[in-house]
């Protein structure tokens, strides 16, 4: 991976000035490259990674992984039906996968009922959908390389040769 991307993927708040210092590039060069990545869609957006379990609200987000079996359509394969599915705002992620089913869809809702309703009324009735298997998520341990655990203290001595 390009070093600017590597650095930003770890901390998106770094300024072009800071990135220039860290990578030994010129500020203008860093700005130019970032702009290029934003324009061509390599950098999609900048956002905070939030541990939902830490948010003390009445309604906690409910998440489900749904395995969806699909009948592919002539000419467009899975893409058209995938688009119909991922366009629903309830769908957080959508992947085409190999194996026993075709689409892996992550659905979010503010209750078990909302998620179940979405599957029963929106997803399952789609003509191309052959079957669905739903797994409600119970706990998130790690996502995209990030472990969801409070900061652990370093164990080194504060000073040593």
């Amino acid at each position, binding site marked *: 991976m390009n*070093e600017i991307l*590597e*650095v930003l993927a770890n*901390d998106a708040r770094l300024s072009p000035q800071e990135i220039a*210092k*860290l*990578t*030994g590039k010129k500020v203008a060069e860093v700005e130019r490259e970032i702009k290029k990545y934003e324009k061509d869609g390599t950098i999609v957006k900048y956002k905070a990674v939030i541990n939902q379990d830490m948010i003390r609200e009445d309604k906690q987000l409910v998440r489900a992984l749904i395995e969806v079996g699909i009948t592919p359509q002539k000419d467009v394969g899975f893409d058209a039906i995938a688009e119909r599915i991922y366009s629903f705002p309830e769908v957080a992620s959508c992947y085409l996968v190999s194996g026993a089913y075709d689409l892996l869809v992550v659905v979010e809702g503010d209750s078990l009922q909302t998620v179940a309703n979405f599957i029963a009324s929106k997803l399952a009735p789609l003509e191309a959908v052959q079957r669905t298997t739903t797994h409600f998520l119970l706990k998130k341990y790690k996502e995209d390389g990030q472990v969801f655990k409070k900061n652990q203290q*370093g*164990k*080194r*001595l*504060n*000073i*040593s*040769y």
Partner: protein
Amino acid sequence: MTLRMQISKKVEQLAPSGIRAFFDLVLGMKDVISLGVGEPDFVTPWPIREKAIYSLEKGYTSYTSNKGMPELRRQITHFLKHHHHLDYDPEEEILITVGVSEGLDLAVRAILNPGDKVLIPEPCYVSYGPVVELAGGEAVYLKTDVSNGFKLTAKQIDQAARKGVKALMINYPANPTGTSYCKAELQEIAKVVLKHDLLVLSDEIYDELTYDFEHTALPSLPGMKNHVIYLNGFSKAYAMTGFRLGYACGPEKIISAMTKIHQYTMLCASITAQIAAQEALKTGFKDVQIMKREYARRRRFIVEGLNSIGLACHNPEGAFYVFPSITNTGQKSLDFAKNLLQKKKVALVPGVAFGKSLDGHVRISYASSYENLKEALSRMAGFLGR
């Protein structure tokens, strides 16, 4: 008999450490940002830790061969061949040690007779002088300074070696300066070593953390294999300091002599560490590269940052240390470190710990997160009134 008289004269005479009290001060203080740590801020990569746990579950809790587990010795010599063009026999020319520290101690004890002189660069890692003295040798310090990036020169070694010297200690990339040598510089040093028939104890523990050029292992240079005791280990590259695992490679005769001492004093390195090290060699290299890239970025940041707040700092070639000058503050290194700690809660190591002539420097370790480095720099700027 008073307690004092019960201690051997040699130990009694070892340089006491004014630094020790400072270290205790740091260790007793909370919420310190420390740039004083001589080990990686990464935890040992999980596959290596997991392997160690698995070995314990399987009951690998015994002694190993004195020299170290045969499979580990084979793996290391194989790695050295492919990464550093070194050709060592896994049966006769390698010894697994408890860190480079033990390797160094064994090496000097194996080769020195009373009064033998050993050339040591100054500044250097804190144990070099004491292990030579404990082994009955005489440490002869070769001063280096920032004007040539704290490098030993062939000329310096040549002149000192004329007075009858047995060995030379060298460490690159170096603790505390980060200084390293490129191949051409090492070739010059090798010429003098061969000319005076010296033995070199080459501590290359930071070799993987070389940023501006490829690291050249000293014994890989023509004619040098029989003149070098090559010391390396797993602590810095694989973030395995607490495992205490290193190795020494060299001529069969010397390794055999070192093994003799090792078998009586240490018996063997811990089996858990030896198994973990095998996993490091199998799967750890990718993690080494990730850590190295991160250190390289921090180096750029800290060197520029220190220079910008008025602490002149040369750009070191490796390790994770910088060794800026504090002479323009008018303070001695220990006072500077104490004041900075007390006023701004930033810890670093006074230069004087690494040699008397280095009182105008401090050692800063950038084995600390970018956030910490940034905050520490800003506090130091405040401390210096910038």
